[in-house]
């Protein structure tokens, strides 16, 4: 007999419920079962109506279920059990004296796992029980594996999403770094010709003064010669000719305009120098982890120089800046964030097809000891249903190819993760949208220079 003993599920007891309207059947079944599976808890029930509760309460693994019972048939109980998802793994063995093929088939269709003929026979019960325990064990294992797979799948999905985001960030960063390097190189190249062009114009200014001075002297001398009365006819002819030539060449006009032309050129050169300088500052974003003390207002001025061209024909940029304390930040990255928000704003305003000029207001200040910048416009605003998605990677309302949808997610990453700050978005009460960037006052500069 001992080699017929079936081990329980793992090290646990096997919980078995027998439902039959005859006490005798219950006792026989129990007796046999105990001889096969000593490590089992056996529950007996004469009342089919309490079956579901018992399965639940006793954590039943295997149910022996009589078909013909008063009150409720085994088939109905079977239906009830199989209706409950949580009892999916419970093994159900129908007890039957019937030979009705149709009933058998119905039992299997309804989800019975096996059947046992009455009167109960030891060998048959043993093999059915063995199969049920095995089956129960397998189902349990399968379920567990299934759950684990689901978990892993979720994990993979989120890792995948993160990877995708990271990859785009890297690509974007590399792009920016490459642009930065290029800008720095170009700036240096421009500074050489800019150096001598600017210097030469300044020098020409000086030279023109000298020439003007001597021309005045010449004129003076000629006038004196003309009036001195000792010049002969030939000499007077020469003097007359030179006067005509002077008129023809419009020398008076040339002299008047000379300095003015140079002045304009100097102004132009100054502007180019300023733009190149700004580009160079923006390009410094190559030093990704560098944190330095910066004047936020200065960064804003520079960004405005860069975007001025985009804005000047249809948009007014209003600076509402107050003297704020220094901000520890990565200058290049913060410039990018502000640039990005302002460009979005410009695009929104330009897409509006409006008659009046658009307005962008840049405001800086301090609140609770923290420096903030607020950028708002009087454009169309941001639809409420996308307000909370606006910082998600790849979320864009621009047409395909117009934007990657990464600008704001990168901005969010820069402000929140890299600078321990906050970035808020919302709509103004009247019209337009606003962004607020709040800087942390906890960051420490890490630069040597």
């Amino acid at each position, binding site marked *: 007999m001992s080699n017929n003993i079936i081990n329980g599920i793992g090290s646990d007891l096997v919980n078995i419920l027998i439902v039959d309207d005859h006490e005798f059947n219950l006792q026989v079944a129990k007796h046999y079962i105990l001889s096969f599976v000593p490590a089992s808890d056996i529950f007996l029930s004469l009342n089919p109506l309490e079956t579901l509760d018992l399965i639940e309460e006793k954590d039943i693994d295997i149910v022996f279920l009589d078909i013909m019972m008063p009150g409720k048939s085994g088939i109905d109980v079977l239906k009830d059990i199989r209706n409950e998802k949580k009892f999916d793994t419970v093994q159900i063995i129908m007890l039957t004296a019937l030979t009705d093929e149709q009933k058998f088939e119905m039992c299997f269709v309804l989800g019975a796992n096996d059947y046992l003929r009455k009167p109960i026979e030891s060998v048959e019960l043993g093999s059915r029980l063995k199969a049920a325990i095995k089956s129960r064990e397998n189902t349990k294992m399968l379920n567990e594996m299934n759950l684990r797979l689901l978990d892993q799948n979720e994990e993979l999905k989120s890792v995948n999403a993160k990877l995708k985001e990271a990859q785009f960030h890297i690509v974007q960063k590399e792009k920016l770094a490459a642009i930065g390097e290029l800008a720095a190189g170009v*700036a*240096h*190249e*421009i*500074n*050489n*010709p*800019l*150096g*001598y*062009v*600017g*210097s*030469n114009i*300044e*020098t020409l200014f*000086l030279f023109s003064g000298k020439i003007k001075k001597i021309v005045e002297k010449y004129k003076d001398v000629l006038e004196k010669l003309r009036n001195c009365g000792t010049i002969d006819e030939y000499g007077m002819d020469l003097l007359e000719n030179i006067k005509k030539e002077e008129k023809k060449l419009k020398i008076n006009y040339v002299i008047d305009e000379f300095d003015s032309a140079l002045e304009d050129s100097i102004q132009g*050169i100054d502007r180019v*120098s300023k733009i190149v300088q700004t580009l*160079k500052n923006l390009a410094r974003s190559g030093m990704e982890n560098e944190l*330095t*003390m*910066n*004047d936020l207002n200065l960064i804003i001025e520079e960004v405005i120089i860069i975007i001025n061209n985009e804005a000047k024909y249809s948009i007014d940029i209003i600076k509402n800046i107050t003297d704020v*304390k*220094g901000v520890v930040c990565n200058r290049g990255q913060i410039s990018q964030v502000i640039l990005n928000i302002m460009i979005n704003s410009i695009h929104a305003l330009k897409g509006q097809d409006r008659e009046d000029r658009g307005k962008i207001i840049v405001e800086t200040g301090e609140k609770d000891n923290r420096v903030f910048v607020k950028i708002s416009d009087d454009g169309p605003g941001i639809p409420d249903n996308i307000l909370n998605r606006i910082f998600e990677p790849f979320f864009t309302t621009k047409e395909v190819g117009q934007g990657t949808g990464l600008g704001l997610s990168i901005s969010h990453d820069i402000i929140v993760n890299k600078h321990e700050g906050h970035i808020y978005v919302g709509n103004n009460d009247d019209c337009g949208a606003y962004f607020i960037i709040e800087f942390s006052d906890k960051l420490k*500069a890490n*630069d*040597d*220079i």
Partner: protein
Amino acid sequence: MKSILFVDDENQILKSLKRIFIDTEYEIFTAQTGIDALKLLRENEIHLVISDMRMPVMDGYQLLHAIKGLYPKVLRVILSGYADEKVVFKALQQNVAKVYVFKPWNNEKLIKLVEQIFETEEILATNNVLLLINNIEDIPTIKSSYQRILDLIKKEADLTDIAIEIEKDQSISTKVLQVANSAYFGMKTGSISQAVSYIGLKNLSNLIMSTSIIDSIGTNVKTEKYIEVIWKHSFYTNKILTFIYEKCLKKKLPVIASAAGLLHNIGIVLMIKNFTNEYLKIMMKNLSDDYGLIKIEKDLFKVSHQEIGGYLLKWWELPFPIIEASLYHHDPFNERVINKDIVYAVHIAQKYAWDRLDENRESLFYEESFNEIDLEKSFFESKLDEDFF
């Protein structure tokens, strides 16, 4: 007549530079390569070299470095569109160049700069200064133990290696910490590696240099009391200087000037050390009168403590702004000053440092200095009371 050599690989730049100086007395030389420049230096008497940075074969740094070795008296300036901060810093900190001018330049300012450089140089090289220096028995030199650390910093060695080298010598590390803690605002640390990371590797060079100078000028019973006061004042000055920059102007104090406050009164220390009796006498008499002190110094020694300090700092090859801070700290509006902001800030810092040490002192003070660096006096004073002491 002074002569200037311009070096740039672009001929148009050289031509435009030459044009600028047509109305001046300077003799102008130009060279398109480092090799040509060295040849001109061999064959002519040249006083100032102004060189571009990026040039083929021999770049500006290499050229000026070579000139520094071959003709140490020739003054050196960089004029470049290349603005990598690390390169600028290295050139100035190692005294390869006195000043770094960025392209595009302004003609008038460039002429002015050349004048300023020559004039400051003249002060430092007058016979009076040289005579006095010759009378000083032993000009303090940098101890070899400090030199080893400085060499490591110059080689841009690993931070931990440098910290280990400093910690090797107990007395050096104690002094370095003492100087760092008392001279840099916001600093309070007990370990070298912490100090190093707080003030930054680049600041370290000036810190070690200053410490070694302070360490090398010994005291005796007679001078101890006075020299200690001067150092205490210098520490305060440097602390207020960093405070002005970081807390008020919201800028980082340029690293090359990070020891400007520490060393600005080195001249007085030297005078006390070497002319103890005479100097202490006039110092005691004019303790609260800078102007009087300078005047009597000039009468008695022909030079002031500003000049003697400037000379020594130049001799130790400290960056130019530190030299200027010593030379002009009582005279910030002097036309010759190139690094104006730093000199104004040191001028303010040294006054407020004295105020803290000695309430009765009435120092020579140009209040307009506040305007020059865009600082409101009342704001500075209230912030100083609030944050500092």
